[in-house]
């Protein structure tokens, strides 16, 4: 039920982000979702792509430091308090969200959010028990 995400260390320098997107694009890799966390010196680019292993390989060849993590893609009811209902369910069970970002596509009637948890398995159990949908990796890579 988990989704693979790659993160890339990027120094705050002109053109570095484009170096990543060019390398991926030239290898025929499509970016499905992304988020960028930044500090004054560097940023961490987190990507969900349609071919994680190839993306990792291509970027490593370009000397980027790449890290693979498992995240959870959950369907969020697309209405006021929709996201809040998920977060409250997690909060009640003391599950902490490290970070999260939105996925640009819809899946049936739901918006999709990507969550990074310390313990993704536990989080998935809670989400499912509370009636939320959790997407499989294949579905997310090819939405």
């Amino acid at each position, binding site marked *: 039920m988990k989704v693979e995400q790659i993160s890339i*260390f990027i*120094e705050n320098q002109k053109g570095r982000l484009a170096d990543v997107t060019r390398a991926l694009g030239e290898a025929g890799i499509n970016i499905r979702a992304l988020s960028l966390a930044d500090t004054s*010196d*560097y940023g*961490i680019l*987190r990507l969900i792509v349609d071919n994680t292993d190839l993306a990792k390989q291509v970027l490593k060849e370009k*000397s*980027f430091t790449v*890290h693979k993590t498992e995240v959870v893609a959950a369907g969020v009811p697309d209405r006021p308090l929709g996201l809040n209902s998920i977060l409250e369910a997690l909060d009640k069970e003391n599950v902490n969200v490290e970070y999260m970002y939105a996925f640009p596509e819809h899946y049936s009637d739901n918006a999709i959010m990507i969550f990074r948890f310390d313990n993704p398995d536990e989080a998935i159990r809670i989400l499912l028990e509370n009636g939320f949908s959790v997407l499989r990796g294949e579905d997310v890579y090819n939405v």
Partner: protein
Amino acid sequence: MIWNDEFETLPREALESLQLKRLQNVATRVYNMVPFYRQKFDAMGIKPTQIKSLKDLGRLPFTLKQDMRDNYPYGLFAVPLAQIVRIHASSGTTGKPTVVGYTRRDIDGWSELMARSFVAAGAHQGDVIHNAYGYGLFTGGLGAHYGAETLGASVIPMSGGNTKKQIMIMQDFGSTVITCTPSYSLYLAEVAKEEGLDVRNFKLRIGILGAEPWSESMRREIEEKLNIKAIDIYGLSEILGPGVAIECVEAQNGLHIWEDHFLPEIINPETGEVLPWGEKGELVITTLTKEGIPLIRYRTRDITRIIPEPCICGRTHVRLERMSGRSDDMLIIRGVNVFPSQIESVLFNIEGVEPHYQLIVDREENLDTLEIQVEVNEATFSDEIKVLQDLSEKIRKEIKDLLGITCKVRLVEPKTITRSEGKAKRVIDKRIK
């Protein structure tokens, strides 16, 4: 094993009487043959015949690197040029290089000291010595080469550079000993890894590493990444080249200085006062046997102390503690003396941190700033900002605890810090305009 049993294990008393005889001899030679020394001796009111004990060494003048520049190129040679069979020069980062000349006996003596050094490091006949020190004006390449031949080992004269070829030769020729700078040994392992090779599986047993200051933690890293014994060797071209002092493989704790050829002293670098054995200060060396360019009380600028206690290996020659830096490498940041090796030891003790780093010293609004650039790698990288911030904070805190200065830690992308094929360029001091 010991190469020259008789001289390397001379009882202290016999060693010191040999030193005195040789000191009287070299003082007489320079007084008669080198105008620079005659003037200096006369100005201090001392004649070579007044040297009656080793204590009188303190009455003799110092020799500075600047004196060598002032007498460029041959002014300090103590024999006619016709007796010089080889000339080396040290890389002058500023201005003219310092020039040294060797007579045939000097070359023979040097070769023996290098052979002694190889044996002290655990090498022997039958070893394949991969000599990656630069051949040329720099003394490293030829110095190690002649010593390896004197030992009777098979020497591969690789010189520096062309790292991928070095790795191929090392693997195919079955090199068992490598001689290079410590930073280059790590670079070799890194390049090999990129080529899909693990140096740990090569036949290498021993690394004889020198020509730049390094730390105990860097030694552990090298020993782990190359699966070798990493031995510290010390030398400087003004005195000889490589083979002035070396660690023995038995103790790996302090470098035996070949006292039948060199007379070491430790002084306070500020005042020139001679310090008792065991105290830390600047190393000063008098060459006892060199003919081409004998030097009296040469100020090396290297900071160390003399370890007088006997060594388990049986050699009676005293040891020098691992050099903690050069007094001219020393950075003064906001009034605090900082050696790059101190910062290095902090970095090496943090799990996962890369051996590649650079220090940027600058001045902003009359305040010195220190930035430490550290490469992020797979071991230290995370998708969470806080993990990286914790790493920076940890480095910052440990530097602060050790040196009392606040620094900025900048994490940089892998392979962005220039790899050096010779001496690593660790410091960029932008205050020097």
